[in-house]
């Protein structure tokens, strides 16, 4: 139980993110069937029937996934409840959240059961819509909106609009991609593109309207945007929404050219943009999962970050390139600064989620050690970005060996990540494997080595690398998404929030780098060439943020 409680906070966030993914894909699949394929049925070619069946299969799979994930989330929450309060399973299952969760799971199972492949009669279609509506209404019981003590209906309506819009637009993207790849006739693509474009625009309006109402109610002031974790995560979501809107605008223009029967309409570009939209959309939903685990910024009035504190932390300083030795741990000036900050900390009542972990007191040497590691990692990443830029020039072919820097980075991490383990610390190499954190670090080291060797081979093989080249952008984008999917200290601990301030732009740069490289590989022409410059620059940015990383 102790181990379970240790990971409970993170597990809850991941399950919440996955719930939103499965929910959106279910809503998107149903909307695609009922608002797009069904009304256009008479006008589309026979290929659309096959696309429709594939879409129905994906919809069933999503609904089954939704059912399974909601049950898993319920099991985790009920286990935590029974484990911490010595309640019986029946008492835990009687909680309101559990009843709402069971209702959502039943709806999802019903959708999976009803959404069979083939023609849907009117009654089946109505019941599917009713089940989705009911599931969303029940899902509202698990959001901030339902918990407010003040007027709740505007917030409930805003949340409903937000989730419905995200479901139809982001959740509809895999189905749109299926249709674009499955319906080869230009007439089909024009009709499907036009209709999906209209659905997306209406969804964006719903997302923005719902999001604005919630942001105003839950943040309450400009200072909460940068001063609280809720505000920082909301800003990350807005940044990703802007990326999605830019891609969506590109697709809108492509659809308009298709509608005008322009033979040069950029169809391939539209498909590739949809792929990237899907990737960023998944990240937005995972971020939303992380965001829902936080109390609204408006409720945190103490220990907020001030603008001057952020500026002070972000002001560039010379990187720390020398490290304290393991047994010599005193940097008096820095230690005094930490002590002063600790003394000033407002005595806000502490609150935490089981498994969030105790925040251990940090010594100046701990901070120096961590900053040194981040700064050297930053140097490696800047070098990787710069070499990838140099590789773009005709005289810079030699720089294509940059993935080998990942091997150097892996060696650095192996030596530095666990100061108490061999070779720096007193714990032997084999004995140190008993510590799960050490084992996790070693696993990362192996993955970085494999990743470096893999990408090096791609660089050497050039155009012949094929799909293997896609591993690099997908891994980088997934890394960015993982950085945004984390549990938070729910009391507004300033130091953690300041660290988060640097991790959020890191994640956004990672996402930009990954998907820009994807576009470079998957497209030709102007956009591919531009993307080839964007991702190394994003890498350099990641490196610079790491170089400016400070913990005090």
């Amino acid at each position, binding site marked *: 139980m102790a181990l379970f409680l240790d990971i409970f906070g993170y597990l809850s966030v991941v399950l919440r993110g996955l719930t939103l993914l499965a929910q959106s894909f279910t809503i998107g699949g149903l909307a695609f069937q009922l608002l797009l394929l069904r009304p256009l049925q008479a006008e589309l070619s026979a290929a659309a029937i096959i696309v429709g069946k594939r879409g129905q299969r994906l919809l069933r799979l999503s609904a089954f996934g939704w059912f399974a994930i909601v049950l898993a989330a319920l099991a985790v929450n009920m286990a935590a409840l029974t484990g911490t309060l010595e309640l019986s399973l029946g008492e835990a299952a009687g*909680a309101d*959240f559990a009843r709402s969760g069971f209702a959502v799971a039943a709806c999802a199972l019903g959708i999976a059961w009803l959404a069979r492949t083939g023609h849907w009669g009117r009654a089946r279609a109505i019941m599917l819509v009713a089940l989705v509506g009911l599931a969303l209404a029940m899902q509202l019981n698990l959001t901030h909106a339902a918990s407010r003590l003040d007027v709740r209906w505007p917030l409930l309506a805003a949340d409903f609009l937000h989730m419905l819009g995200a479901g139809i637009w982001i959740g509809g993207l895999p189905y749109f991609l299926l249709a674009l790849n499955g319906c080869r006739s230009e007439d089909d693509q024009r009709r499907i593109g036009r209709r999906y474009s209209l659905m997306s625009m209406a969804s964006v309006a719903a997302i923005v309207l719902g999001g604005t109402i919630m942001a105003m109610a839950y943040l309450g002031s400009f200072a909460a945007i940068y001063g609280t974790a809720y505000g920082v995560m909301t800003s990350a979501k807005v940044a990703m929404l802007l990326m999605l809107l830019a891609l969506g605008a590109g697709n809108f223009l492509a659809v308009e050219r298709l509608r005008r029967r322009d033979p040069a309409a950029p169809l391939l570009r539209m498909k590739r943009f949809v792929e990237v939209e899907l990737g960023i959309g998944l990240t937005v939903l995972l971020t939303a999962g992380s965001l829902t685990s936080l109390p609204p910024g408006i409720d*945190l009035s103490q220990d907020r970050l001030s603008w001057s504190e952020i500026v002070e932390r972000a002001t560039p300083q010379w990187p720390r390139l020398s490290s304290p030795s393991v047994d010599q741990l005193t940097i008096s000036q820095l230690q005094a600064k930490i002590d002063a900050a600790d003394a000033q900390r407002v005595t806000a*009542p502490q*609150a935490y*989620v089981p498994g969030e972990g105790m925040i251990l007191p940090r010594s100046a040497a701990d901070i120096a050690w961590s900053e040194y590691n981040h700064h050297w990692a930053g140097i490696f990443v800047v070098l990787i970005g710069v070499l990838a830029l140099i590789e773009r020039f005709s005289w810079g072919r030699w720089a294509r060996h940059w993935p080998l820097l990942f091997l150097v980075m892996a060696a650095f991490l192996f030596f530095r990540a666990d100061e108490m383990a061999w070779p720096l610390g007193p714990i032997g190499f084999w004995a140190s494997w008993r510590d799960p954190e050490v084992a996790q670090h070693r696993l990362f080291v192996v993955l970085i080595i494999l990743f470096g060797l893999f990408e090096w081979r791609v660089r050497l093989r050039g155009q012949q690398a094929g799909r293997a080249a896609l591993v690099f952008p997908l891994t980088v984008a997934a890394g960015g998404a993982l950085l945004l999917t984390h549990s938070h200290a729910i009391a507004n601990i300033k130091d953690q929030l300041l660290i988060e301030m640097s991790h959020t732009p890191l994640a956004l740069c990672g996402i930009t780098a990954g998907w820009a490289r994807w576009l470079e590989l998957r497209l030709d022409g102007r956009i591919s060439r531009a993307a080839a410059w964007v991702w190394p620059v994003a890498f350099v940015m990641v490196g610079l943020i790491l170089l400016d990383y400070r913990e005090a």
Partner: protein
Amino acid sequence: MSCITRSLHLPVIAALLLACPGTASAHAIIVTSQPASGATIDKDAVAIRLRFNSRIDHARSRLKLRAPDGAEQALIPAADAPADEIDAEARALRPGAWHLQWQVLSVDGHITRGDIPFNVR
């Protein structure tokens, strides 16, 4: 009604039967507390009043006192507390450093815990 149509209604009915929860709540954090964190009390009894930012599930929330010698004692929350509060009475407090440990469940399933240290003089 055909057999197929009837079978289609089953999941809808099942979902409707389950779909009757009351109000729900999100993450609960303390807005005000009595005693305040770090407060010093001159009496041997104190009225505990923790107010949260949202509604909480009283039946699945707990309050506990940890005495200066480490002994723990569960407190019985008042039944008539407002939706966003947990109230209780602590008596016979001897001088020393005490901890009020709380755990609440917001109705949406978020569990929050906390510890309020206070001194009795």
